[in-house]
């Protein structure tokens, strides 16, 4: 079983490698539990979801989130490793489960740092034609914009919580699945 451990993996191919190794063993079932990336069932879970998305773009060095996979990704990777989906289910955690608050606290730091840093506008693109501006579009500039946008959304979502406190973040829904050999 892999229970809230999938986001810690260094890459998606590690997930595939684990599932292949399990398929080569005598294991008959694999049990999965990971965050669903759904906050629709509770507005107070939105900071948790945004914290995960922010860290998927800008991981913390010692953070919990390194590789964010969607439930569909996990099912597809499992199928390629020889496992069928026996069934899936989504549960809403108890309001006392602190994981949403923990992640929001960690990610808040990234968001505040991004908001405090001056936005970098490449000089070569400013006031020139569109073709020149396109040339300044880089992986780094795209990442910077994404971190700032996710960070802004996170800080706004925390502000909208009761008393505006990150400690009132709820954990998002959890996706559960059982896999069986093909």
């Amino acid at each position, binding site marked *: 079983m892999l*229970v*809230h*451990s999938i986001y810690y993996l260094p890459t998606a191919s590690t997930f595939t490698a684990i599932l292949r190794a399990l398929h080569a063993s005598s294991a008959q079932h694999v*049990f999965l*539990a990971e965050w669903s990336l759904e906050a629709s069932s509770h507005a107070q879970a939105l900071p948790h979801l945004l914290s995960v998305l922010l860290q998927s773009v800008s991981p913390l060095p010692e953070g919990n989130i390194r590789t964010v996979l969607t439930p569909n990704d996990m099912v597809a990777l499992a199928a390629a490793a020889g496992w069928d989906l026996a069934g899936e289910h989504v549960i809403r*955690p108890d309001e006392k*489960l602190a994981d949403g608050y923990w992640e929001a606290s960690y990610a808040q730091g990234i968001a505040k740092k991004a908001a405090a840093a001056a936005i970098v506008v490449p000089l070569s693109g400013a006031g020139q034609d569109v073709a020149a501006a396109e040339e300044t579009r880089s992986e780094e500039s795209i990442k910077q914009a994404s971190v700032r946008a996710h960070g802004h959304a996170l800080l706004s979502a925390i502000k909208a919580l009761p008393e505006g406190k990150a400690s009132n973040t709820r954990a998002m829904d*959890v996706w559960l699945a059982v896999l069986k050999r093909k």
Partner: protein
Amino acid sequence: MSLSSLDPSSIARESLTDPRSLDTQISQTRHRIEILKGWAHILSSSPDDANANEGDNELQAALGKCVLDIGCGQGDHLAATAALFKAQAEHAQGADKNVVIGVDPARLDYGTCAQGLCLSVLGRPWLI
């Protein structure tokens, strides 16, 4: 076999070495029991049945005799699974002992209870 009989407080107490964070540990343990119940729900042969023990037997069969917890961290799910196995063994007297093994590349001082868990009386959780 009785997922509904698992008590988060007693499992948390047995697996935790730092009593200051007991409330947090109880919430984590309750969540792990809900995950086990969710898997039982998936495997249940009669999922529309509003039975408290829904899917218990199917989960027991699917878990088998040896469970590997990959990325067990501080062992929260090990403790819940070991408690389930212990409840099963008490229900079916003389049944074979089941084993749950946790593996994690993290340092052993990660979290608060993994080392305590190795020594606990909850079934036979092993940490590698």
